[in-house]
């Protein structure tokens, strides 16, 4: 499972894997990331991840084939580490008050709202990386029955904390923004705090679990914010 490496600009390189998005691929990505940090740490300005990619921005140009040779010589199997065990519990109020598309999506899928909620809140979702908005988690693990094409006309405002489905993805809007996903509910948990040196609570490889709460609990947690808990 060796990635190919492409130079994108004098200082940007990208590793790409030709395999399906999976826990195993994520393990390889995280292992390559750790190796890059170990071997090129001082020359790395920034690392960015995608579902099948890992990109690195360097502070100075490297010799043409250096990274290619480096990745070839790596013994990735040896450095492969198990993914973290931590599971974060995100309370979600699934209701038409907090998820304007819940009713329509259930109807569209020809299931009850309860079935929709249970299909969405049963699985554990794997956090692969952050993108789209500060603190937005790219999660893998949405059940195929729930895959839904994005709205053809995006909503101008999606409320902060909205839990939504778009294509084969599910996610939480960490801030209010325009968006084309179908809104099922809302979490009262804050996902991003720019005042903290690490502004997010979960790291790549950890898992997320959505736990249904009532509208009363949602209102209570909105007034008395709590930090997310893990198990």
């Amino acid at each position, binding site marked *: 499972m060796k990635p190919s490496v492409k130079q994108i600009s004098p200082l940007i390189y990208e590793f790409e894997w030709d395999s399906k998005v999976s826990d195993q691929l994520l393990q390889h990505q995280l292992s390559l990331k750790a190796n890059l940090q170990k071997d090129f740490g001082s020359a790395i300005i920034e690392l960015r991840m995608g579902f099948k990619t890992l990109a690195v921005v360097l502070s100075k140009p490297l010799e043409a084939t250096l990274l290619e040779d480096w990745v070839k010589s790596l013994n990735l199997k040896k450095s492969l580490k198990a993914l973290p065990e931590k599971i974060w519990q995100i309370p979600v109020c699934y209701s038409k008050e907090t998820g304007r598309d819940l009713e329509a999506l259930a109807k569209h899928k020809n299931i009850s709202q309860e079935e929709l909620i249970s299909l969405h809140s049963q699985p554990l979702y794997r956090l692969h990386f952050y993108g789209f*908005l500060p603190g937005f988690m790219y999660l893998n693990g949405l059940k195929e029955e729930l895959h839904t094409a994005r709205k053809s006309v995006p909503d101008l405002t999606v409320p902060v904390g909205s839990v939504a489905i778009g294509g084969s993805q599910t996610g939480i809007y960490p801030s209010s923004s325009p968006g084309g996903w179908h809104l099922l509910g809302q979490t009262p948990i804050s996902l991003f705090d720019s005042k903290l040196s690490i502004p997010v609570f979960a790291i790549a490889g950890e898992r997320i679990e959505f736990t249904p709460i009532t509208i009363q609990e949602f209102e209570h947690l909105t007034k008395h914010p709590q930090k997310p808990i893990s198990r």
Partner: protein
Amino acid sequence: MIKDIGYLKILKTGPGTSIQDKGRVGFAQYGVPTSGALDSRSLTWVNHLLQNNHSDAVLEICQPGLQIQFDSPTLICLAGAKAAIKLNGGVISSDGIHEIRESDLLEIGYFEQGSILYVGIKNGFQCEKIMKSRSWYAGITAEVFAKKGDQIPYFTKQDLPNYTASKARWDFKWSQNNIIEAYPGPEWGLLNQNTKDLIESMQFTISELKNRMAIQLSELLPNSLPEMATAPVYPGTVQLTSGGKLIVLMKDAQVTGGYARILQISEEGISILAQKQPRQLIRFLVKKNL
């Protein structure tokens, strides 16, 4: 040096006025965009003339109609667009250093050339630094765009700071260039030869859809690429949408995207593009050898 705080007051502004520096580097792993001055060449230039740090914060102005007042003495430096500027009612040049005294009024009028004007200030604007940058961005800083009544802090001195009245000329010519240097992006290789030839030979038009996040080009390409697994993007990444449109990502762009990334523009190219006005034409010069 005794540093007292002075304030620049916004009396009137069009849309798109903000504080920017070199940007927020190292936080993309949390989904935080780079941000920073769209035209980093002009940012570096004003800070250089003011003998500031090269990353000190400046005021970025994207529309005519700005009126600002300084409550204490300082030096400012202008660069970027060629615009009609008045200091206390008198016409001044839109490039180079100007002395500011207490209560001076600066007005930015019609943009004759270019589309972004920068006002640098001695020691830089002193807005709060969050995640190692003062650049304004929604969800990170309290302010996103300047509005009437805002007061922006800077350091002042009772006496005017010393400066060399150097006659360094700001050359507007570089931003007139319509050739944008670009490197092949990760998905360049997926394009067919005909589309590659078109991209390298066609003229593209800057559309009205131009902001701090992205610039959309007007022309449609006959060949499009399907959406792909979400992958990293940068300021300067050119995306080809599934509808055949080209989108050039700018400084406030998301850190990841799902469209094919066919080109990556250099920092210099981003500065040139940022200064283009809608309806202006550009060409890409694709550099195959890095």
